[in-house]
C-alpha cells in the first residue's frame, strides 16, 4: 500500500495504490492527515485508480477524512473508482458525503 500526495491550487490529491484494509488504513490516514492538517486544502481528492481491494476499513478512512476536512470547511472528492469498489462505497452511502467520480477530474471536464 502506498500514498502519493500532490498539493496544487489548494487541492490535495492523494493517489492511493494497493489494498485498503484495517492493516493498511492507519498508515494511509497518518500520511494524508499529516499533510492536510498543515496545508488545510479546500478540497481533498482521493484517487482510487490503483486500488485493487477495499473493505469497510476504507469506508471508515473516507468518513474520517470527511470529518477532518469539515473542520476548515473543505470537501472530499473520490475519483477513478473501480467498479468492484464502487459497490461498497454506495452500500455505505458515501455519495451523500463526497462527490464520487468514476473518472478523474480532467477526463470529466472535457
Amino acid at each position, binding site marked *: 500500500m502506498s500514498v502519493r500526495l500532490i498539493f496544487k491550487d489548494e487541492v490535495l490529491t492523494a493517489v492511493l495504490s494497493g*489494498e485498503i*484494509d*484495517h492493516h493498511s488504513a492507519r498508515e494511509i490516514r497518518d500520511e494524508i492527515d499529516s499533510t492536510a492538517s498543515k496545508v488545510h486544502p479546500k478540497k481533498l481528492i482521493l484517487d482510487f485508480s490503483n486500488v485493487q481491494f477495499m*473493505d469497510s*476499513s476504507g469506508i471508515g478512512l473516507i*468518513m474520517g477524512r470527511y470529518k477532518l476536512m469539515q473542520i476548515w470547511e473543505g470537501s472530499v472528492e473520490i475519483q477513478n473508482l473501480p467498479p*468492484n469498489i464502487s459497490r*461498497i462505497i454506495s452500500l*455505505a452511502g458515501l455519495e451523500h458525503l463526497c462527490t464520487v467520480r468514476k473518472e478523474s477530474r480532467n477526463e470529466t471536464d472535457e
Partner: protein
Amino acid sequence: MKPMNEINMSFPSCSANEGFARAAVSAFVAQLDPTIDEICDIKTAVSEAVTNCIVHAYRNTIGVVYINCRIFENGKVIVKIRDKGCGIANIKQAMQPMFTTSEDERAGLGFAVMESFMDKLHVSSKAGKGTSVTMQKMISKRTGRQEKNGQG
C-alpha cells in the same frame, strides 16, 4: 451433501494476516471458476470477518483465528470464521449498520457488508467464549465451466 474440497487454517490475529486470509480463501474458491465479482465479494466478506476477530474479539491481545472453507459440486461455498475471543453479548445490536464498539476509525459496516456480499450469514457467539461467523455463497454456473478441465 459432502463437500468436494475443504481447507482448514489458523493464524494469529495480527492485522498483517488480513490480506493473507482473504487471498488464501479466494485462491481456494478459484477451483469453482468464479467471476471476478464473485471472488471480490468473498474476499471482502472474509476481510470483514477476520478484521472483526482482530479488532473486536481479540482487542489489545493476540489470539488464534480459525477459518474453515468448503466448496461443493453445485457451486456452493461455505466459509466459517471463528475466534475464541471476548464474544458478542448482543448480536442483534452488533449487526446493526453503523454500530461499533471501537473508538478507532471504524465504519461499523462489517456485518452489513458480509450480509450484502454473501447469500447467507449466520453469527453465533457466547460472551467470553468466542464468536463464529458462517457465510454462504453460490457461485453461478457459467457456460463451459463444466468443461474447464477439458479443452481450452
